[in-house]
């Protein structure tokens, strides 16, 4: 590990460089299996720029032993990386049209490589909008970057939180309340990542706004173990999230997100 940056309470970005010097090339939206020696491996989406694979970034929130061990790592410590795995955002499909990115909570991390890709090739896309929701202002991740993106003239950035103390000058409410009212259904592709109920509400609101479900992509999170479709831990009916996803067109997973007990 080269660096460990605190993004928010219990949420850190780990900057990793390969011990063998070989860069781990990945596509935005793909994940790796990460672990500290002596701890379990867990699936974490890559959160850094795909055009700088020599330094691998992962943003991790501590929710259990394995993730807590990862955010406790210090520069010089060894982190085991296996992958990358899965199908990513395939953001190039949006070239020539508008891009709408909707993130909730730590769901901004898997979308960050896609955002960086779009901004690196800004001329290839039409209107670019980022809508980001979080629990509270102090839980917002990539805050400095959000401010930079908001300062650009070619990106619309809207941020909302579930609640805030007085002094917060931003928006409070659901991410769906900040979705653009004038989405161009013909040319827009939407990329959505966050808790499943947030993705479902967002995707349904976009479909209600006439966006075809095939133009809405969501990233599913499941308990991936092998990462290559063998163990079945991440199987969701006919889908293996680790190889068929984690990114899916909404038309493919809508009925699963509506189901109970998933």
């Amino acid at each position, binding site marked *: 590990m080269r660096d460990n940056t605190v993004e928010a309470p*219990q949420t850190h970005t780990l900057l990793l460089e390969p011990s063998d010097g070989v860069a781990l090339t990945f596509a935005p939206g793909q994940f790796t299996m990460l672990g500290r020696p002596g701890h*379990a491996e*867990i699936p974490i989406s890559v959160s850094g720029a795909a055009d700088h694979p020599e330094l691998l970034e992962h943003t991790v*929130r501590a*929710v*259990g*032993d*394995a*993730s807590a061990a990862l955010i406790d790592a210090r520069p010089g410590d060894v982190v085991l990386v296996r992958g990358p795995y899965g199908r990513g955002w395939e953001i190039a499909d949006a070239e020539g049209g508008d891009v709408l990115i909707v993130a*909730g*909570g*730590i769901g901004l991390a898997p979308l960050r490589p896609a955002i960086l890709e779009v901004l690196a090739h800004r001329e290839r896309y039409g209107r670019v909008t980022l809508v980001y*929701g*979080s*629990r509270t202002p102090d*839980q917002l991740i990539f805050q400095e970057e959000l401010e930079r993106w908001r300062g650009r003239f070619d990106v619309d950035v809207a941020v*909302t939180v*579930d*609640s*805030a*103390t*007085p002094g*917060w*000058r*931003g*928006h*409070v*409410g*659901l991410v769906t*309340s900040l979705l653009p*009212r004038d989405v161009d259904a013909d040319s827009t592709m939407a990329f959505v990542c*966050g*808790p499943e*109920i*947030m993705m479902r*509400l967002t995707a349904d609101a976009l479909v209600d706004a006439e966006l075809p479900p095939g133009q809405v992509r969501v990233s599913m999170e499941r*308990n991936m173990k092998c990462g290559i479709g063998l163990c079945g831990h991440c199987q969701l009916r006919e889908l293996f999230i680790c190889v068929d996803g984690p990114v899916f067109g909404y038309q493919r997973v809508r009925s699963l997100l509506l189901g109970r007990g998933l």
Partner: protein
Amino acid sequence: MKSIEQLLAENPFFEGLDDETLTTIAGCAQNVHLREGETLFQADDLADQCFVLRTGRVALEIVDSGGHGMIVDTVQAGDLVGLAWLVPPYRWDLDARAVEPVNAVAFDAMCLRTKCDKDPRVGYLLMQRVAGTMHDRIRSARVRLLDVYGVPGGS
């Protein structure tokens, strides 16, 4: 300078209302400007007004007895601020404060209620829009009650 009817017709909250209805409710309205930090109303005060925002943002805050506040919603252009003016005892249950400069149309609540009572057609059209706001706020509160961004159990 635009008339109140024009301001109402341009506002998404009143989208679809006919000219006659707009003229009727415009009789209860006035154009107002609020500075950043200015209070629209406070909890326990008489709910004698409501506001439809044209520009700017308003925070809805609940303040506990210790003076600690929490912003539970914000309202932006095209939305309604204030629901308690419709139901007895017509008292606010939270504070509303402009977090940035606001242009709004303010309605006299008693005037509006009286017109709704006199003309149920106008009342129904208005209530449809108010019910939409209520529905959105209830759904928003319910989903946030789930604390979907909170820390789940996991590895």
